[in-house]
């Protein structure tokens, strides 16, 4: 049962002179939840975006579901339908209501007919607790609702793996919970997930593996209890001290 | 006669006290191009009217400066009233309507409306233009004549003679109406075209000044008369039309 879903080897990525990723190796197996933490600018988003090739890696390989994405002959669009992506800024299609947001790609890419697409969409809206917002426009929803709709949109494509890039960072504090609990539920259902987050409580409770990144490399990696609860690296310790104990960062 | 010029200037200044809108310059309004009365050549405006007005300018001891401005502003008196120029010498026919808006000098040139068309086009008179396009120039007597007499003809109104002639030449219109002097001059070079008929409108050109500008008007009249009697007029005429004036 340790089927590999994502396999990243020697991944590097630069923007011009700036080396953002400097050799990342990472394996995610089916059903695993991996959380990536680390300071701003350390390359967490870039790593995630390389996994569905929104950024093209400079070198190294990214294999998802056995498809080497970095190969120019790979059918990238087909591969992407199997990879759900959730962005910090939701990115619901602004000109379509919630239902159409969920059915558009199903119909145009998976070629599902309207009825089938709507059935899938409604089931997934149910899953994230948004059944009553089927006909709302994105602008009429709260941030938390928009993010849950975005999750449902990704789920409607029946992905093998879900990528989350700080899905709660743009939310008011009281709206964070509704999104995190949907994510926790997904994990419980056995979804394979790669999550960039600053929510330490979530990482601690839900993640099978936590990855601490800094300056484009993985500094520390292991079970949540170890990386968050008892970090070995100095950089990890000082980061966690800053984030977990902000009122007293000056002491120490 | 340089000496003569000086005495004349003294006399003119003494008896008439001409006021100029631009100090030290006699400013003339005209609508370019209107060959051979006035047109640009080698960076200067030259022509029959220019030479005639130069006689006045010399007398005043100043340079003539020519302002190119759309013709309908000239003939309506607006440019003179606006102080754009001292006088208007633009191959302009003396008419009753215009007399209300400006003062004309004695006539200095006889003209009539004429029709311009391509050779062999079959356009011989207004009747043959029925249903066709006739180019007219905005604000001119040709415009008025065509409007009155050319029934069933589509009149196409152009800003100036240059645009009108180009339209005729390139076939945008079937014919053009304007003063005979300029048309005959033009067909000298454009041999594919001819002046097919004259309308015998019996017009006379006059130089315009702002209503009430007696001093300048008298000076102009004096020089027109002098030029005609001294043979200077014939000399200028021949220079621009290549032949001596027929009647006078």
């Amino acid at each position, binding site marked *: 049962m340790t089927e590999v879903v994502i396999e990243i080897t020697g991944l590097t990525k630069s923007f011009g002179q700036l080396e953002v990723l400097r050799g990342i190796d990472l394996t995610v197996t089916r059903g695993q939840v991996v959380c990536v933490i680390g300071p701003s600018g350390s390359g967490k988003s870039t790593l995630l975006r390389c996994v569905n090739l929104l950024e093209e890696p400079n070198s190294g390989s990214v294999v998802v579901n056995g498809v080497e994405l970095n190969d120019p002959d790979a059918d990238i669009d087909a591969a992407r339908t199997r990879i*759900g992506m959730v962005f910090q800024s939701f990115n619901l299609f602004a000109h379509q209501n919630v239902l159409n947001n969920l059915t558009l790609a199903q119909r145009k*890419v998976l070629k599902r007919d309207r009825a089938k697409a709507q059935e899938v969409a409604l089931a997934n809206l149910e899953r994230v607790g948004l059944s009553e917002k089927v006909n709302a426009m994105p602008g009429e929803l709260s941030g938390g609702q928009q993010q849950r709709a975005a999750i449902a949109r990704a789920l409607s494509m029946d992905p093998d793996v879900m990528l989350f890039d700080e899905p709660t960072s743009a939310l008011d504090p009281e709206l964070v919970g509704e999104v995190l609990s949907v994510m926790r539920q997904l994990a419980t259902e056995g979804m394979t997930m790669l999550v960039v987050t600053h929510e330490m409580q979530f990482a601690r409770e839900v993640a099978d593996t936590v990855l601490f990144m800094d300056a484009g490399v993985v500094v520390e990696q292991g079970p949540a209890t170890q990386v968050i609860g008892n970090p070995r690296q100095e950089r990890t310790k000082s980061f966690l001290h800053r984030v977990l104990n902000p009122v007293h960062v000056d002491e120490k | 006669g340089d000496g003569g010029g000086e005495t004349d200037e003294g006399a003119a200044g003494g008896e008439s006290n001409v006021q100029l809108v631009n100090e030290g310059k006699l400013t003339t309004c005209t609508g370019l191009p209107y060959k051979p009365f006035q047109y640009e050549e080698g960076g200067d405006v030259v022509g029959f009217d220019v030479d005639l007005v130069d006689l006045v300018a010399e007398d005043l001891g100043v340079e003539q400066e020519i302002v190119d401005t759309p013709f309908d502003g000239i003939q309506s008196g607006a440019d003179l009233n606006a102080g754009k120029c001292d006088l208007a010498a633009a191959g302009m026919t003396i008419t009753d309507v215009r007399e209300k808006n400006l003062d004309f000098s004695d006539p200095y040139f006889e003209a009539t409306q004429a029709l311009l068309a391509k050779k062999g086009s079959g356009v011989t008179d207004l009747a043959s233009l029925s249903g066709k396009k006739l180019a007219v120039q905005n604000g001119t007597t040709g415009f008025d004549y065509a409007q009155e007499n050319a029934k069933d003809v589509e009149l*196409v109104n152009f800003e100036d003679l240059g645009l009108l002639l180009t339209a005729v030449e390139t076939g945008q219109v079937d014919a053009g109406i304007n003063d005979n002097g300029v048309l005959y001059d033009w067909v000298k070079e454009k041999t594919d075209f001819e002046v097919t008929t004259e309308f015998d409108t019996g017009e006379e050109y006059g130089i315009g000044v702002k209503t009430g500008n007696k001093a300048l008007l008298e000076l102009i009249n004096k020089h027109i008369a002098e030029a005609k009697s001294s043979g200077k007029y014939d000399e200028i005429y021949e220079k621009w039309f290549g032949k001596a004036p027929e009647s006078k």
Partner: protein
Amino acid sequence: MALSRRKRARLIRGTQYAILVVVAVVFALTADWTRIQQAFFRPEVVREMFPDVITVALLNTVIYTGLGFGFGLALAIPLALMRLSSVAPYRWISGIYVEFFRGLPALLVILAVGNGVPIAFPGAILNKYLALMVALGIVGSAYMAETLRAGIQAVPAGQVEAARSLGMSPMRTTIWVVIPQAFKIILPPLTNELILLTKDSSLALFLGASISEYELTQFGRVALNQYQSLTPVLVAGVCYLIITIPLSYLSRYLEKRGGGKKISSPESTGLDVTP
């Protein structure tokens, strides 16, 4: 200096109203009202101008503008797509075209098309409507191409990324996500270009026109000479405003609907800057 709010407000408003009243009174007393009426508004001239100013001149202005706008848009779409192409020569061609025609006065373009082309290509007969359509279209297309390009690029990158990560191809993304959203962004500036073209259509008089082809400016100009009064120009001007002012309100409405910023209250902006 340290006035209370109430005193400051009173002082500022008081001074401003005082200036206003003084200016108004001086103006009312010194102006020669009969003269002004004669100059600007002679009712009999207005009566003479109707109904032709509407049925002929205004109508022609709208027709010329419409033709130019349509042709301009037809040119602008491929130009904008070329500008966004991955093939460099297309980007260059489109870029040069846009830079070139945006930098030229409309009058020069109209002269070149209406006067120059027949000279340059003997035998070419330009219908007035065709010539104006081409000339105004070229003038408008350079602006519209830039508007379309900017509109497409203004669609947030996140929208495209979302579509792409759902497996939609670039083409599908463009059709189903980018264009519908760009459309909303593009409408207000496109309306403004329609206004600009309406005004540029006044240059039509340079192409020569028969009476039935007069647009507003030529109509007003001929009447200005006929009646020796500013009234025709004023009437023509009002006719332009009948077109342009509603369009500019439309443009602003569309812009707001597309999600402009809220304007904050006077106190919070502190912008009562008049002395």
